């Protein structure tokens, strides 16, 4: 399941809803990405490409489910104006086996970084600037290439 929303999310409630009534699940891995303040950050605004975002998140989720035996999965990605400490993204993967859940969750985050059409603008003490993509995010995505 995927969701793109302006509102905050409750990770605990999402995990509970995703795993309810499925006793085949042995482990649930999750990741919450937060707005980090490296000094002087006032806010971060996430812009995205409505339509393409949903398509890409669905593809990324489908790819994870093709690679690992997941009982359930969830991607929630926010957009709009966020402040330091605010949650940005949630990925949850549930499987009979803990390592499948961990690996799939890690994979979802690596792919989101390079495949989901979001752009971040930071507002700090000295004005605003667009956040550049990181080359190590590309490297993190590439490490899954051989194992597909």
């Amino acid at each position, binding site marked *: 399941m995927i969701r793109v929303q302006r509102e905050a999310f409750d990770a605990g409630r999402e995990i509970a809803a995703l795993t309810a009534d499925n006793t085949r699940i042995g482990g649930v891995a999750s990741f919450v*990405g937060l707005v980090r303040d490296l000094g002087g950050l006032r806010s971060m605004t996430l*812009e995205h*490409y409505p*339509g*393409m975002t949903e*398509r890409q998140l669905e593809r990324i989720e489908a790819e994870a489910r093709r690679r690992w035996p997941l009982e359930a999965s969830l991607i929630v*990605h926010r957009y709009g104006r966020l402040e330091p400490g605010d949650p*940005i*993204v949630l990925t949850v993967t549930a499987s009979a086996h803990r390592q499948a859940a961990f690996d799939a969750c890690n994979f979802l*985050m690596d792919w*989101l*970084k*390079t*495949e*989901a*059409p*979001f*752009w*971040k*603008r930071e507002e700090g003490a000295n004005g605003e600037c*667009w*956040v*550049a*993509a*990181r080359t190590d*995010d590309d490297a993190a995505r590439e490490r899954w290439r051989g194992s597909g």
Partner: protein
Amino acid sequence: MKILYFAWLRDKAGCSERDVAPPPGVATVGALIDWLAAQDERQAEVFADRSVVRSAVNQDFAEADTPVCPGDEVAFFPPVTGG
């Protein structure tokens, strides 16, 4: 053909969306960029450094040789920073 700009490409373009009608010879993303960059000063600036411009055709990531047709939605944006 609908053109969309995101993030700092939109700031440079001065608009987020425009409709264009390139001549029939403009059949790929690369050719479309050449044609757009030749339209005016702002467009020239948007595409000045193509190594930092990514594109999508009908909401799928595209490359310079990806075909484009009349009616397509073509988006230009910097490398994404999701997650």
